[in-house]
C-alpha cells in the first residue's frame, strides 16, 4: 500500500524515514498539535513550498535544467486565483475558473519558452528564463488594473475556506496528492528518461529519445505543479501580490531549499522546504539573541543581525554544492 503510494521510491534510510514520518504527522495534525495562528501559517507555508520545491526539483534535480522562471509560474497560479476571486463572486466555480486559466497560461508559456531555448545549452535556458521572469514581474506590477500593481490583490474566499482549519486541510491535502503525483512521474519510465538525459544527453539521444521533447514536457509539468502551488498559496493568504509570488528572492529561496534538501530526490524537497521555512520563521529569533549577546564586538553583531539570516543559508548553500551535492537526503542515505 505504502509502496504503491510512494511509487516504489522508498526513503531508503532509517533516519530519513523517521524525519519524513515526523514531518508528515506534524503537518497532518498541525492544527491540533500546534495551535496558534503563527504556527499554522508556518505549517501551510511548508506544504506549499514542499510542492513548489518538488516541482522545481523535477527540472533541476531530475532533468538537469536550471530555470529562473519558476516563480513566474508560481505567480501565474496565484494571480489566476486572485484575479478570478477578486472579479467574480467568492465561489468554488471562480476558483475553478482561475486555476484552469492559470494552468492553461502556464502550460502555453512553459511550452513556448522550452521550445525556444531548450534546444541549446543549459546556460542559455537559464539566461532566457531569468530575462522572461523579470519581465513578467515588471508586467504584473505595471498592469495594475488587472493585478493590483505593487499592492497586489486581496480577495474573499468561499464560505467553507474562511475557517482556517478547513483552508489548511485543503492546502495540505492538495499538496500531498500533488507531491505523490510528482513522485509517480519521476519513478515512471518517463522519469527514467529524464535521468538519462541528465546523466548523458548525447547517449540518451543516441538511444533514440528526443531529448528536446522530454525536456519540454518536464518543463511544462514543473510549471503546472508550480501554478497549483501558487494557487494554494493565494487561497491560504487570501492575497496575491508581487512580493509573495514573483519576487526574485523567492526564486533564490527555492534554489536554497532544493540544494540543501537534496537535488534529484523528491524527499529532498520535503526536508529542504521544512528546514528552510522553519529557519525563515525561527532562525531570526535565534540570531537576534546572538546579535545581542555579541554586542560590543566589532562586525559580529552585524553578521548576526536578524535580517542577515540569508547570509548563513547562502554559505550553507555554497558549501553543500561543493561537499554534499546530493544534499541532506544524499547524506542520510549514504550513512544509513
Amino acid at each position: 500500500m505504502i509502496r504503491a503510494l510512494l511509487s516504489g521510491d522508498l526513503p531508503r534510510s532509517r533516519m530519513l524515514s523517521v524525519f519524513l514520518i515526523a514531518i508528515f504527522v506534524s503537518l497532518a495534525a498541525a492544527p491540533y498539535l500546534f495551535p496558534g495562528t503563527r504556527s499554522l501559517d508556518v505549517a501551510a507555508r511548508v506544504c506549499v513550498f514542499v510542492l513548489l520545491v518538488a516541482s522545481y526539483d523535477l527540472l533541476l534535480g531530475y532533468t538537469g535544467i536550471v530555470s529562473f522562471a519558476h516563480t513566474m509560474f508560481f505567480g501565474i497560479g496565484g494571480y489566476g486565483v486572485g484575479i478570478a476571486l477578486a472579479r467574480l463572486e467568492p465561489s468554488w466555480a471562480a476558483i475553478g475558473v482561475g486555476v484552469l486559466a492559470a494552468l492553461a497560461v502556464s502550460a502555453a508559456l512553459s511550452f513556448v519558452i522550452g521550445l525556444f531555448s531548450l534546444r541549446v545549452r543549459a546556460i542559455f535556458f537559464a539566461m532566457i528564463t531569468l530575462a522572461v521572469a523579470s519581465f513578467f514581474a515588471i508586467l504584473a506590477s505595471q498592469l495594475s488594473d488587472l493585478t493590483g500593481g505593487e499592492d497586489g490583490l486581496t480577495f474573499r474566499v468561499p464560505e467553507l475556506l474562511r475557517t482556517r482549519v478547513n483552508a489548511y486541510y485543503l492546502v495540505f491535502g492538495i499538496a500531498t496528492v500533488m507531491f505523490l503525483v510528482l513522485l509517480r512521474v519521476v519513478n515512471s519510465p518517463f522519469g527514467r528518461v529524464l535521468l538519462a538525459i541528465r546523466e548523458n544527453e548525447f547517449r540518451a539521444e543516441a538511444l533514440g529519445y528526443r531529448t528536446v521533447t522530454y525536456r519540454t514536457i518536464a518543463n511544462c509539468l514543473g510549471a503546472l505543479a508550480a501554478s497549483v502551488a501558487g494557487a494554494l498559496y493565494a487561497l491560504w493568504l487570501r492575497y496575491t501580490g508581487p512580493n509573495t509570488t514573483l519576487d526574485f528572492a523567492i526564486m533564490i529561496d527555492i534554489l536554497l531549499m532544493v540544494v540543501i534538501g537534496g537535488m534529484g530526490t523528491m524527499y529532498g524537497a520535503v526536508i529542504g522546504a521544512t528546514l528552510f521555512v522553519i529557519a525563515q520563521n525561527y532562525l531570526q529569533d535565534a540570531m537576534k539573541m546572538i546579535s545581542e549577546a555579541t554586542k560590543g564586538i566589532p562586525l559580529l553583531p552585524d553578521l548576526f543581525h536578524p535580517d542577515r539570516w540569508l547570509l548563513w543559508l547562502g554559505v550553507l548553500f555554497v558549501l553543500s554544492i561543493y561537499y554534499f551535492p546530493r544534499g541532506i537526503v544524499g547524506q542520510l542515505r549514504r550513512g544509513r
Partner: protein
Amino acid sequence: MKNAISEARFDFVPLALMAAVALAALAFIRTPSTWVTLTVAGLAMGLLIFIMASGLTLVFGLMDVMNFAHGLFIALGAYVAASVMKAMGGTLAGLAPAMLAAMLAAGLLGLAFERVIIKPVYGQHLKQILITTGGMIVAEQLIHVIWGPDLLPLARPEALRGAFLLGDVALEKYRIASVSVGLALFVALAVVLNRTRIGLLIRAGVENGEMVEAMGYRVRRLFVGVFVAGSALAGLGGAMWGMYQEAVTVAIGAQMMVLIFIVIIIGGLGSVTGCFVGAILVGLVANYTGYLAPKVALGSNIALMVLVLLWRPQGLYPVGKS
C-alpha cells in the same frame, strides 16, 4: 602574415540594423531635437551596459564559464565609488579616485571569486550556475553587512551636472561623458584584442582553447586575467551607472544582470563586437520606446531579443562554439 579569420569579411548587417533602428525612430518621433536627446541617452545607456557586459561575454567565450554573480561586481563598484566620493566631498577631484577604487575593488573580488567559487566547477554548467548564484547571495548579504541596507546617495560632481545646449537640443553632460568613456573603452578593447599578442591569444582561446594550450600557452592564466579585467570593468560600469542614477542599492546588480544577459544573447555569446552592437541596440530601443510608447517600453528588450534570435538564432555575431 594574414590568416583566414582576419581576412573573413566583417559583417556589416548588424551595424546597418543599428542605423535603421535610429532612422526608423526619427520617422516616428519627428522632432529632431527630441530624437537627438533620446539617441544620446540611448547611446549612453548602451555604452554603460557594454562596459559591464564585455567582460562577461569574453569570459564565457574563453572558458565556457557563465558567471551569474557578475551583477555583484557592478554593485560593489557602485558602493565603493559612493563611499570614496563621499569621503572626497563629492568634487570632480574625487571622480578619478572613486572610479579607480571601484575598479580595483571589483577586480580584487573577481580574483577571489575565480579562485574560491569558480575554479572547482570548470566544465560543469549546472554547478556553475548554482554556485555563482550562491556566491551572489552571500556577497549581497555581505554588502548589506558592510554598507547597511539603505539606499546610498551617489551625487555627480558639479561639473558633470546640467546640460549643453546646441540650438534647441539639450545634451546632458554626464551622458556625453558616458558615451566618450564607453567609446574609448570599446576602441581600447578592439586595439588590445586585434593588435596585441595578448589579444591574439585571447581570440585564439575563444576560437579553440585546446589548440592554444597545445602550442604551449596557458589559457587558464589568460582566463584569470580576463576574468579580473572583466570584473574591474563591471565595477567601473556599476560606479558610472550608480552616478547616472545618483543612488546605489544592492538591487542595481540584479537589475543590470537582466539587461546584460539580453545584450550578450543578442550579440552572440562570447563576441565582444556583438556585445557592443547588442548593448547599443538595447539602449536605443529602450529610450525610443520609453518616449513613444511608455506602456510597451518594458517589453521592448525582450521583444528585441526574440526578434534577433528569430533572425539569427546564435546571436548577431555567432562565435564558433556551441
